[in-house]
């Protein structure tokens, strides 16, 4: 499989007559974009705004972030299985609007959070303060069931990324990244002495606002499955998770999964990267046993020497993370976990909801309970009401001058458990 990600560096975004990229400036025809998204009869109104790095702009409540792209060679238009006809992904040439992001907002339920500040303290914590954001506010028709509302917002975001991605079809890339890997037999013959490493990516799979999709299939319904890293980099994995703002994996982060990119970078040098296993995080205990046993079995069958496991969310998924770790270590497979901590304002509480002695190599992506103060914004894109919700979880968090004290928990991507964020990690 060979995937070329042809990165077109975006330096600014403006509204204009055409959908195009000219000299790094992304021009968006707002009417065309709105008309496309209004084709869905469940959509009542679409508002489109732009937010640029450094502006005193706050975006809230963010549902998903998506990287706009267009496939110029090979199969796969949009997001196959979701917005496009089903084809396998992972091969071909893709023009990527690097530095741009579609950011969807919308009140699906009243207590939604997820803030992106484009300046100041808030910007420090979210990777999406550095992207030129095309913010799409999706207002559905009245009377939709919550899960239909969620689906409407999710699909509109993906379509917006597809429409905007078209702007890059004829642009010249600033640089090209190539991801190529043969089958296991070929790669293992090439690198017989390198340790074989698998990446297990866990996905929240629990129902309304807590879902992930693979080629459009709800991950609640799958057994853990093996996927080529190129497929995920090419858009096979979609976020339907609208909670846990700090550590949900947005679609953008799937498209640019840091764990995959780092493992790819070491492939053929220090490791033989075998691929990705996507594992659902279910709610029932029996379901958890099934997926954890199955994940460990797949890793063992594949002959992995080492496995990196990343979590999504906090709470009951901690049990899955540690159960997978326990099983892998018992099978003699060295295991590294990537998670985040919920260790209180002072960082002193037990970081995970579960524990196991086999978890000896753990990377923390940050403390979700860490408190930050966000200054008042000049402009709010989205719902001003959501700001009081953001601050509403505990006493005294919204001060008179309008600044908000909140936990990192509310900030999009602040403690990303796949490492796509701004925190660094120290070795202890």
């Amino acid at each position, binding site marked *: 499989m060979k995937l070329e990600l042809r990165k077109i560096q975006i330096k600014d975004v403006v509204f204009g007559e055409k959908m195009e990229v000219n000299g790094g400036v992304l021009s968006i025809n707002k009417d065309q974009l709105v008309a496309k998204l209004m084709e869905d009869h469940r959509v009542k109104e679409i508002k489109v705004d732009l937010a640029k790095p450094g502006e005193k702009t706050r975006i809230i409540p963010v549902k998903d972030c998506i990287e706009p792209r267009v496939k110029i060679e090979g199969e796969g238009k949009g997001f196959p299985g979701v917005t496009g006809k089903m084809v396998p992904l992972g091969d071909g040439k893709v023009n990527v609007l690097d530095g741009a992001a579609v950011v969807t907002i919308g009140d699906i339920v009243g207590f939604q959070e997820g803030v992106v500040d484009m300046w100041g303290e808030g910007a420090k914590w979210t990777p999406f303060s550095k992207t030129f954001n095309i913010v799409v506010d999706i207002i559905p028709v009245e009377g939709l069931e919550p899960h239909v509302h969620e689906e409407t917002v999710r699909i509109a975001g993906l379509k917006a990324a597809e429409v905007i991605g078209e702007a890059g079809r004829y642009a010249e890339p600033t640089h090209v990244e190539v991801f190529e890997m043969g089958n296991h037999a070929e790669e293992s013959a090439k690198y017989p002495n390198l340790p074989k490493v698998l990446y297990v990516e866990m996905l929240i799979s629990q129902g*309304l*606002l807590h879902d992930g999709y693979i080629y459009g299939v709800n991950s609640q319904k799958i057994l853990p499955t093996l996927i080529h890293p190129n497929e995920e980099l090419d858009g096979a994995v979609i976020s339907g998770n609208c*909670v846990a703002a700090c550590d949900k994996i947005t679609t953008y982060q799937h498209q640019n999964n840091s764990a995959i990119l780092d493992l790819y970078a070491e492939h053929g040098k220090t490791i033989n990267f075998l691929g990705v296993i996507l594992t659902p995080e279910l709610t029932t205990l029996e379901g958890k046993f099934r997926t954890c046993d199955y994940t460990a079995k797949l890793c063992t069958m594949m002959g992995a020497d080492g496995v990196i496991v990343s979590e999504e969310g906090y*709470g009951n998924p901690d049990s899955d993370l540690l159960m997978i770790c326990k099983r892998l270590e018992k099978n003699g497979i060295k295991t590294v976990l990537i998670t985040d901590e919920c260790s209180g304002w002072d960082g002193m509480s037990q970081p995970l909801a579960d524990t196991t002695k086999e978890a000896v190599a753990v990377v923390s992506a940050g403390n979700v309970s860490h408190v930050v103060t966000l200054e008042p914004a000049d402009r709010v894109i989205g719902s001003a009401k959501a700001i009081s919700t953001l601050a509403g979880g505990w006493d005294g968090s919204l001060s008179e001058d309008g600044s908000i004290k909140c936990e990192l928990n509310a900030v999009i991507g602040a403690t990303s458990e796949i490492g796509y964020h701004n925190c660094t990690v120290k070795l202890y």
Partner: protein
Amino acid sequence: MSYRIVTNNPSVRESYNSNNIIFIDGSYEDVLIKVRDLVHSGVELIDSPLGASIRMLLSPYRSILVGTERQAMNMDQILIIEQSILNYRTLTQRRKAEPEHANDYAVVDKELLKASIQAYEDMNCPTHSKFTGGEFLETRA
């Protein structure tokens, strides 16, 4: 394939057969405590007691699936529920209620419960798929 729902969510109580409901007129923590008592008496814990996101820990409502029969005490499940109560207290000690969002929390709790029941039934139903084979697709495509 039988279960009961321990819940303090009035909207769940209205939607399911009352024989399947153990309604708690109390808080999220009271639901956890009732589940703990049941698990100590040998009732199976079907659901993981905590949600998958911090936000849902602020929910005033929680619905948890348990079994219907008393069996031998399961030490792992006792540990899970006891640990969950401790974690719940730590995570919510600085929180305050959000009554203005109570209805939305009730909706999401009910939807998550629905997914959980579906998952439980899928796993326990011997003929969960009516699809008998690929011959139709393969030969007539």
